[in-house]
């Protein structure tokens, strides 16, 4: 199996797109934090995360993804163990256990678990021999993803838990979901959705209510959305300029260096800047789809498509929240939001993509 591959085979187009997005992100993190004594210098730490992520990407690219597929069972088990550990001994911040402290470093296990699920599902679905997925296959992959989802939701981190759904959906869809099964799943989802209301925590309900009617309680989370929309809208076409957004600089945008970084960016760089960043994201995502098409095997396709759907979901939910299309969740904007675990795990996901990419001409 040991084939020699060269970094020359890396997808450099994808790499440049990703780097450009990171540049936009770091400069906006600088703009949002430079005036605050508490957060000053955060952009440098983000550069550090990027460096670590970059290294992780190169390492993973080098590693043949088939090896990961071989150990998929253990990868999956490790992820579940990590998630259970978070619930048992995780660090509690703002009433949620999401971080595991290992050697002085706080790791958000769920970020890595997502990748484990991508690999697990790729392995399982690529082994299905039939043209179309059987019902029993659906139940099995559903249980695999569901277990991780429940553990993440229990932290509680509903946003991240929900990111497993597009991964699962994309996987089964590409692996040959029957149309009648798809119809049944959509129907079930529609029926179950109202019931989940009772499972939501008060703050989650409030966010949903707020999302449906932001003016109803402007003091709480509706206030965040409103302030975010004000920031975006007041940016106009050309934006107010770097470090000149009043909503950003005076602290009206909530968590403006992380989840709401797009609001700060849109305020200061305007519609022109938004256009640039969204075009970069679009190129990145389309390139991922292209890589999925050109993957050497079914498992490779499923891995790359899983990463693509994960990033698309993050983009839609996060940016949708900033402009008021989506309820407030803690999902970061990949590659732009500040954050160690999220940044590194995104780069690792890209490493998986590169690993598939570099082997596209092998054994065809």
């Amino acid at each position, binding site marked *: *199996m040991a084939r020699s591959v060269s970094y020359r085979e890396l997808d450099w187009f994808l790499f440049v797109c990703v780097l450009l997005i990171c540049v936009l992100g770091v400069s906006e993190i600088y703009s949002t934090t430079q005036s605050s004594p508490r957060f000053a210098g955060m952009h440098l730490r983000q550069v550090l995360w990027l460096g670590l992520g970059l290294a992780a990407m190169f390492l993973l690219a080098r590693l043949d993804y*088939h090896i990961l*597929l*071989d150990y998929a069972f253990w990868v999956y088990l490790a992820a579940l163990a990590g998630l259970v550990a978070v619930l048992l001994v995780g660090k509690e911040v703002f009433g949620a256990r999401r971080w595991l402290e290992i050697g002085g470093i706080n790791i958000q296990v769920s970020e890595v678990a997502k990748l484990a699920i991508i690999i697990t599902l790729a*392995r399982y679905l690529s*082994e299905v021999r039939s043209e179309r997925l059987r019902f029993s296959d659906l139940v099995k992959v559903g249980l695999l993803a569901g277990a991780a989802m429940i553990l993440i939701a229990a932290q509680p981190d509903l946003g991240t838990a929900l990111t497993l759904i597009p991964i699962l959906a*994309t996987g089964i*869809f*590409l*692996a*040959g979901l029957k149309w009648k099964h798809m119809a049944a799943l959509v129907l079930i989802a529609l029926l179950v959705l109202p019931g989940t209301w009772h499972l939501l925590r008060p703050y989650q309900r409030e966010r949903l209510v707020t999302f449906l009617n932001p*003016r109803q*309680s*402007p*003091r709480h989370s509706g*206030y965040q959305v409103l*302030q975010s*929309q*004000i920031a*975006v*809208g*007041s*940016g*106009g*076409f050309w934006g107010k300029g770097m470090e000149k957004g*009043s*909503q950003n600089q*005076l*602290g*009206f945008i909530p968590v403006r260096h992380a989840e709401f970084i797009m609001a700060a960016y*849109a305020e200061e760089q*305007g*519609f022109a800047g*938004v*256009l640039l960043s*969204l075009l970069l*994201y*679009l190129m990145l*995502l*389309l390139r991922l*789809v292209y890589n*999925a*098409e050109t993957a050497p*095997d*079914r*498992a490779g*396709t*499923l891995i790359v*498509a899983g990463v*693509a*759907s994960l990033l*698309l979901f993050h*983009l*839609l939910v996060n*940016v*949708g929240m900033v*402009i*008021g*299309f989506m309820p407030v969740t803690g999902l970061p904007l990949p590659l732009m939001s500040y954050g160690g675990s999220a940044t590194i795990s995104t780069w690792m996901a890209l490493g998986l993509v590169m690993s598939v990419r570099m082997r596209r001409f092998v*054994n065809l």
Partner: protein
Amino acid sequence: MYSGLGNERKVATRRLAILRYATIAGVLLLLIGFWRLQIVRSSYYATLAGRNCIRTLPIMAPRGLILDHDAHVLVDNYPSFSVILVREHMRDPEESLAAIAHGLRLDRAWLEERLEEFRNAAPYHPIVLKDEATLADIAYIEAHRTDLPEIELLMMHRRRYPPHGFGAHLFGYVGEVSKHEVAGGQYNPGAVVGKLGLERRYNEILMGRDGQRRVLVDSRGREVGRLDYEQPIPGRPIRLTIDSDVQLAAERVLEGRQGAVVALNPRTGDILALVSRPAFDPNLFAVRMSPQDWQQLTDDYRKPLLNRVTQAQLAPGSVFKIIVATAALEEGLFDKPFTVRCTGTAHHYGRAFRCWRPEGHGQVDLHKAIVESCDIFFYEVGKRLGIERIAYYAQKLGLGGPTGVDLPSEARGLVPSPGWKQRAHQEAWWPGDTISVAVGQGPVIVTPLQLAYVLGGIASGGVLVRPHLLLDSDNRNREATTYRFPLKEGTVRELTDAMWGVVNEGGTGAVARLPEIDVAGKTGTTQLVGYDTLRRIGSPSSRQPQLVDNAWFVGMAPRRNPEIVVTVLLEHGGHGAAAAPLAREVIRAYYEKKNRGGPPQYAQRSPSNQAQRD
């Protein structure tokens, strides 16, 4: 070894294409969202962003000080914090109002009413919710800077008036502008304006122009920078003709009584003292007055808000004899020796008219008639003059119309005439009416200020200077406000000597006598019930104080071309003689002040009203 490798099979490319289209659609959807916010509704959100971080805070302009003649401060301001609400900063009226009502312990309904009053005002216009903020209020505002950015503390300059109602009717008071005045377009709602007295009359001078500053605040409501600053323009001071020493003497003599005292210098028209009792405390109005306090003031039957000096309209009684005597002298009635025999009663037009002294005064000439205030003599004089001539002189000398004093709502008084009676009562003048009018009874009514003005004018030979309170230090307006009705020298001599006699020859005003000072004067007693009724019910003093006569005294010094004229009105004070010692004390205070030395040295430095007005 991974087994899937052996069985290569591409996933349907068609399904990957769907993922591609979903991606494009998703990003397009986001772009539409940004387009809507950043292009379509950009200006709306820009306004919201500005409103978020820009606060417009007013800087209140202090009202001008009120100074006395010697430039002593009579009315000044003190700083105090008020809680204001700026609607522009309000995020959610429904929720905020409930929180504010609870936090500041205000009535919710009142709060809404209050906001409604300002509906048409600019949204940045401050609305005062509470004066004299307590520590609890301040703590509440500070603690809710983030969620209640619309409430603010604002330093106000609150009026401080002298205590115990000193000069209350002079100064009046200030208050929030009424809806009616706002509708006139002159003031912003919520503006503090003069409501009564000089505060009202000279509001234009006293009221400053509020400034404002626009500041940048962060999301926690902390000020992080200043955008611009508009300096407030403080109100200008006014300097009065009031002499605090004379005023104080006048305040003292009326303490605990009901009536009025006014002292003026007829040469200049300067009002030296002006007191009306009962008084009110204008400081009560400086802070939002409680409805109970207001009710008490307006319901008081003794009418403490009434400025009796310019607004009480009462029969002048025997003081009016001076006007009748002036008419008679001018008309030459006394060119030939003229005496009347007083027996206590005289019959005119088939009716008996009595003298105040039942036993009569015997043979009476003009001098004695004034000194002893003989009614019988003046019945005869009035009868000979006729009402038309009495009315003519009374009006020419300044009765029956406002003096033009610089206080709002001055009463006109009334000089009756046949024409007036026809108009007002659709009745013909009855000759007997003239007899009553000749002694200042019946329908003739005057204000205390009018009496001081007219008697001072007569003693000055018919030169009447409009009384005023705003100091005209260079006498710039003297000519324009002087009215001349020249009297014969003999008239003036005869009358002033007679009025001197009232005080110095054992007349009705003998108690007003002051050694070494040339005091003249005239008493007046206004019957509230006729002599006949009085005889029937006996003396009302004990049981029905409201039926006791009003006492008048108009005193002046020196007797000719006086420099001070004092009118004293004591409501239900009894005989006019009772009012005389009060006038004496005011005149004494004036001369004591004068003999102590000239004007105080600092008077020179202080601003004059003219300079201020330019």
